[in-house]
């Protein structure tokens, strides 16, 4: 019997799109019966949203004041206790899941399968190493729980046609007080979310300043795209860290990715190689970004980007 527990990612109000992708990965495990765990302070709204995830049979709602904000040291012992009834425990390979799931794995005395990109069998998975320069097939040991994180760019979320039931549960386990959430300084934006947007426009160091980055935002708004950036642009302080795309930032797979003034360091390409179509605009015709771009345009971005914005608006 294959029983999969997916750990929901949420902000207390809405389910993160990463959860539907984890369910899609779980559904690829042969014979999986899938439950989704919502750990929150008052998770009713999120749990209700989760019941519509296609392919799951149950939502488990665990309310506890200590779960108001996801702190790995607090969530992990609860999940480890829940895990006794499951063969697989999956979370997203987002900063939420990458922080939490290894702590769960250690409590269960197993290694984690990080960044699952394909399921080949109940214990056999493909995952990338060396910034995606190699793909390995990994076999988790039989007779032990499988703990894994799901690579977001490899899965499309399941749809919301499900009708699962919710079950409330309380978990009798002592929770540590040594780790305390203070605050979250989140970038506010009316634009689409970078990780789930079907179109993304990114800018690089060549933009030169925070003010100049405005042309990237305007182009993005003209086509309803999310905005990303290269590490160089983030390091230079043009835009905040949550906009970074690449090996150490967000790994994304939009339908359309437009890279502007980004040379295409291997670490950046790691973050975009699953994009359906890549468009690159750069003044250096030899930039490595053109090796992976479907459409390339060489020239001055300060002239070309406003021109493109106008063309796409009309």
């Amino acid at each position, binding site marked *: 019997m294959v029983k999969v527990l997916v750990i929901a990612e949420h*902000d207390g109000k809405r389910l993160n799109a990463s959860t539907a992708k984890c369910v899609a990965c779980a559904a690829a495990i042969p014979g999986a019966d899938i439950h989704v765990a919502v750990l929150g302070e008052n998770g009713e709204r999120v749990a209700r949203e989760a019941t519509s995830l296609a392919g799951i049979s149950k939502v488990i709602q665990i309310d506890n004041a200590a779960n108001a904000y996801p*702190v790995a*040291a607090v969530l992990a012992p609860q999940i480890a206790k829940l895990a006794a009834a499951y063969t697989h425990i999956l979370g997203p390979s987002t*900063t939420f899941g990458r*922080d*939490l799931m*290894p*702590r769960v*794995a*250690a*409590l269960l*005395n197993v*290694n*984690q399968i*990080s*960044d699952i990109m394909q399921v080949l069998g109940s214990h*056999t998975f493909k995952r990338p*190493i*060396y*910034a*995606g*320069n*190699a*793909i*390995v*097939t*990994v076999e988790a*040991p039989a007779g032990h729980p499988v703990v894994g994180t799901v690579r977001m760019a490899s899965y499309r979320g399941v749809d919301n046609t499900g009708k699962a039931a919710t079950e409330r549960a309380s978990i009798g386990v002592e929770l540590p007080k*040594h*780790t305390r*959430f*203070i*605050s*979250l*300084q*989140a970038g506010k934006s009316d634009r689409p979310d970078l990780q789930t947007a079907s179109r993304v426009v990114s800018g690089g160091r060549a933009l030169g300043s925070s003010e100049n980055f405005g042309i990237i935002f305007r182009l993005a708004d003209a086509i309803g795209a999310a905005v990303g950036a290269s*590490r160089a642009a983030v*390091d230079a302080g043009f835009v905040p*860290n*949550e906009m970074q795309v690449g090996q*150490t930032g*967000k790994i994304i797979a939009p*339908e*359309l990715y437009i890279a502007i003034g980004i040379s295409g360091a291997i670490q950046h390409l790691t973050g975009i190689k699953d994009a359906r*179509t890549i*468009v690159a605009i750069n003044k250096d*015709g030899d930039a490595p970004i*053109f*090796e*992976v*771009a*479907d*459409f*390339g*345009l060489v020239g001055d971005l300060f002239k*070309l980007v406003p*021109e*493109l914005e106008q*063309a*796409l608006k009309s």
Partner: protein
Amino acid sequence: MDKILVGLKRVVDYNVRVRVKSDGSGVETDGVKMSINPFDEIALEEALRIRDRGEAREVVVVSIGPSDAQQQLRTGLAMGADRAILVETSSAPDPLTGARILLEMVNREKPDLVILGKQAIDNDNSQTGQMLAALWGRPQATFASKLALDGTKATVTREVDSGLELLEVDLPAVVTVDLRMNEPRYVKLPDIMKAKKKPLDQIALASLGISTGAVASVTAFEPPQQRQKGVMVSDVAGLVAAMKDKGLL
């Protein structure tokens, strides 16, 4: 505080374009340049800055790996670490075994703070720090870009998907660092000479009595699918036409 423990992993240098061997048995590592995992270098730099501000007495670097990992520990000593420990293994262990070995080092050294890189750039697992914190029963603050110490507590700024999170942890704790925490110093020649005289203890893994347990096995290596180079367009009108042709607009 008294002591900070920093982990240094020996990995293929980040500038090397790693390739899968033609027979699929692994990746090409013969004759390839090896370095300290870049995230671990940032971890060490942070520890050194804390010590140099007078907020810690000693920085100890630990590596787990083959005898050759002494090179990376010597580099760490040249950067300014006070002493080094190599836990000798035939190859780098899996994350859980690595965490158990680090826990044994923690029990021996009793550090107030452990700083590690957020992931190693070879296997990209991003597990060891979180696992050490779990086994130790202590706080973890992962993906840190800022670390402020205040007596028995630390306040850590974490780079999370939605922005910057502030977490307060009681010490001792495990912190794993992200790229923007600092820029590691360059090692100068006189420091390399000095580092040769600093203590580097070697411990055989067998002497620690740590069992490796059930480990996931890698059964195949393959190169990733390559994207094909596309077409170059000459102007914005050409680009818009090409995008329309592909049904993107």
